[in-house]
Structure formats: structure tokens, C-alpha cells
């Protein structure tokens, strides 16, 4: 993805929409005592479709908006989400996951890293008791990871839809190209099926 004005606008609007949606509409919905967290999913989706740098920037912006909007410690979420976006983006850059189900592990990993990373930052900031990690927090993180993994496919599809015009390389198109037409043989020539 080239960092054009259109791309920045789209990502900015996505960040704003997702953060507002998350804090005002999604967070109150409790499933098994926890709520879906769309923010790490968004960062993971941008990482998958756009790469490490846009994902890190998205993470930073989304984290900053979260921190400012929720009157949290400004910079804490940004720091964690920047690393999450960069890490997932680097994985995408290096391994080029084109599998149709790639959003599920990527969404789950982003959520888990965000939850764990945020806990570490909170501990470093003295917000959490460093001598003990409550079982509730671990359970909550696990439930959020599962919920996000379940939601990853449709959410990634929506993000791809929003960013498709600005994408240099669409992983889905890549996958389609790799598979090749069905009526050709293994080396791409008709009539040479094995």
C-alpha cells in the first residue's frame, strides 16, 4: 500500500469508526463476561493487507485515540498497538500468508499480544499489582482472543473492502493467481494434466 492521501484518509476513517464503535457500542456487549475488541483486529487486518509500516501507524493512531477518548494514560495503548501492528505486518511481509483462513490466527495473535502487552505496560506503569496476575484477567484475555478469532474473517473482509482501492497487493488476488486456472495442467499448459 502506498501512503497516499486517499489511503491515509481511509485508514484514518477506519480507525475513527472502529474506535468509536468499540467504545460506544461493542464494549457494553458482554459475551461470556467479556467483550469483542475490534481495535487489535483492525491493526492486524491493516497489517495483513498493507504491511508493517501502515499497521504500526494504524496501531499508534488507534491507541492514541483510545487513550485520549477513554482518558487513559496517553501513549500506553499506542505503544502496544504500534508493536502489534509492526510485528504482524513483519510476519506478513516475511511469510506472505495468503491462506483464506489467515485472518483467524492473525486476529487471535494480535489480540493476545495486545492483551499481554497492555498488561505488561500497565505493570510497568504501576497500574497493576506486579506480584500477581489475577485469574480473571487471564480468563478475560482468553475469551477475547476466542471471540476475536471468531469475528476475524468477516471483520478482515470488511477492512479489505474498505482498503481495496488503495492496496498495491491484495493477498486474495495473489492466492487466486497462485492457484492457476483449473483447466490447465500442473505446468500451466492445457492437455498435460497428470
Amino acid at each position, binding site marked *: 500500500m502506498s501512503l497516499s492521501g486517499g489511503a491515509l484518509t481511509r485508514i484514518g476513517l477506519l480507525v475513527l469508526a472502529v474506535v468509536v464503535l468499540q467504545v460506544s457500542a461493542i464494549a457494553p456487549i458482554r459475551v461470556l463476561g467479556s467483550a469483542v475488541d475490534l481495535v487489535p483486529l483492525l491493526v492486524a487486518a491493516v497489517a495483513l493487507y498493507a504491511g508493517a509500516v501502515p499497521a*504500526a501507524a494504524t496501531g499508534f493512531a488507534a491507541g492514541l485515540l483510545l487513550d*485520549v477518548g477513554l482518558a487513559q494514560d496517553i501513549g500506553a495503548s499506542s505503544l502496544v498497538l504500534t508493536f502489534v501492528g509492526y510485528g504482524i505486518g513483519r510476519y506478513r511481509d516475511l511469510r506472505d500468508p495468503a491462506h483464506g483462513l489467515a485472518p483467524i490466527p492473525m486476529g487471535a495473535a494480535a489480540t493476545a499480544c495486545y492483551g499481554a502487552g497492555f498488561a505488561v505496560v500497565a505493570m510497568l506503569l504501576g497500574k497493576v499489582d506486579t506480584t500477581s496476575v489475577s485469574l480473571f484477567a487471564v480468563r478475560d484475555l482468553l475469551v477475547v482472543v476466542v471471540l476475536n478469532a471468531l469475528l476475524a474473517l468477516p471483520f478482515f473482509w470488511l477492512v479489505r473492502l474498505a482498503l481495496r482501492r488503495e492496496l498495491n497487493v491484495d493477498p486474495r488476488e495473489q492466492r487466486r493467481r497462485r492457484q492457476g486456472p483449473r483447466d490447465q495442467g500442473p505446468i500451466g499448459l492445457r492437455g498435460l494434466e497428470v
Partner: protein
Amino acid sequence: MYDQKAIRRRRATLAVLVALSIGLLTIFFGDSAGGRLQVLQRGVQVVLGPIETGVSVALKPLRDAIGWTGNVLSAQSENERLAGEVAKLRRELAQAQTRGKAAAQVRALEKLSRRPAYPDGVDPVTARVIAQSPTVWYSRVRIDKGTNDGVRVDQPVVSGDGLVGKVTRATGGSAIVTLITDESSAVSAQVMPDSTRGVIKPELGKPEDLLLEFIDPKQRVRKGALVASAGISSSKLESLFPRGIPIGEVQRVDSGEVDLYQRVHVKPFADMRRLDFVQVLTDRPDLEQAEVGLP
């Protein structure tokens, strides 16, 4: 192979973003209450507030629908849990009530044997009723004591309230007791305190109504009078039931002008359909002693 420029740019971006985050954190923690970041935070909240309110209101139906689904699911699971708890508590209550009832019956049995009119020397064996006929037509119960415990056929059986019946069959570990409400039953009885004698027979299908027959019409029988076993009924035929065991009380008296005898309706003291513990009187009392114990 790798574009060094791109790598440097990427790393620089990361470094800048991380540095910005840490810088913001540092400034935020060092910021006073009215500091610039706090003002920024409040400003953003002022701007985002209406948007968040709008989104929240707009998506409330969706949120409610999801919440309703979640509530229904959790209510269902809670309902199942509560139903299980109710069933468990009901079982415990039933067990406690059964134990309480059994204890009350055992206490009543003890109390019965201490009554002054109760025959001495009967050597009671306490037994639990383990089976009973579900219909009113067959007035028989099975008890968990048999010949191994000294129980023999024709021995009288009492409950805490009074006479119940007699043993009609006995095996090693159990015995069949035919109740006094069975159509084959007949007990020589007397109305207290006048010792007016007759024979107690059941009215079929009416376990709560016994008939005291063969009462001379000249004898006056009062309602509410106590009816007890009469013991020896004649010099030739010995009663199976020792004298003085309470049977019931007089409910009413039917005395037609053409009838040779009065028909006295007696309500048995023992509830034949709710017997848990009974006593089999395994020994016969000494006749003279029984006479002394008369009420």
C-alpha cells in the same frame, strides 16, 4: 536483495512511533492537572462525546438484541442450574422429612409401649415397612423382619398409633402383615370404658372406617369412645391380639329397629396407608398380667 532504504524507513517509522508513544507517556505522567495533554484529552472527549452518544443510541437496538440473546442463553443455563438445585433441595427435603417422619413413628412406638393399658411381656420387634399395596383393596404390607428375628405367623402388629394387623406370612428376612382393614381381618374388640365387646371388621375400600359388629343394641356406645383389642374372646378360642391395644375411636353408631346388633363405625388410630415403622409383638403376654393392665 532487500531494499536498504525501505528497511531503514520502516525501522525509522517504528522508532519514531515508539518514541512518540513513550514520549507521550512520559509527558502525560509529568503533566499537571491542567497540562496540555489533559486539555487535549478533554477536548477530544468533547468532540468524540456526541459522536459516541450518537453511535451508541443508533446501535442500541442491535446491542439490545445481542444482549437479549445473551440474556436468554444465560437465563437458560441459569434456569437449568436452578432447576438442578431445586431438584437437589427437593430430594434433601424429602429425605429430611422421611427421616423426621420415621423418627416420629419410632418415638410413637416407644410411647405406645409405655402406655398403662399396653400389654406387658409382648417382646416387640420393630420393623420397617418395605412394601405396601398401592390399592385400597389389598391391605397388606411387607416388613423387613422375619423368622430370623422371631417373627411368626399370627403375631399382632402395632404402629405408634395402635393396632395395625397381624403377620400372615413370614420368611427368614421379611414378613407379610395383613392389616385390620383387610377384608379377611376380624379382631375382637371392646369399647372403653364399659368393655362392651364386639368384633372389628373392615368396610371394603374404606381404610378409614372399621365396623364394630355384634354389639348388643341395649348397650349404649358413645361417639368418641376408645376401642381397644379385647384379648381373650372366649374360653375355647383365643384371640390373636393381646388385650388393651388401642384400635380406634367411635365415629358413629347405626342402630336400625330391625337390626339384631348395633353397627358401630370406628375410625382406626393408625393410618394404614402411611406406615413406615411397626412393631411385631413376638411374645404373648401373660393373661393375668394383661388383665391387670386393663384401662
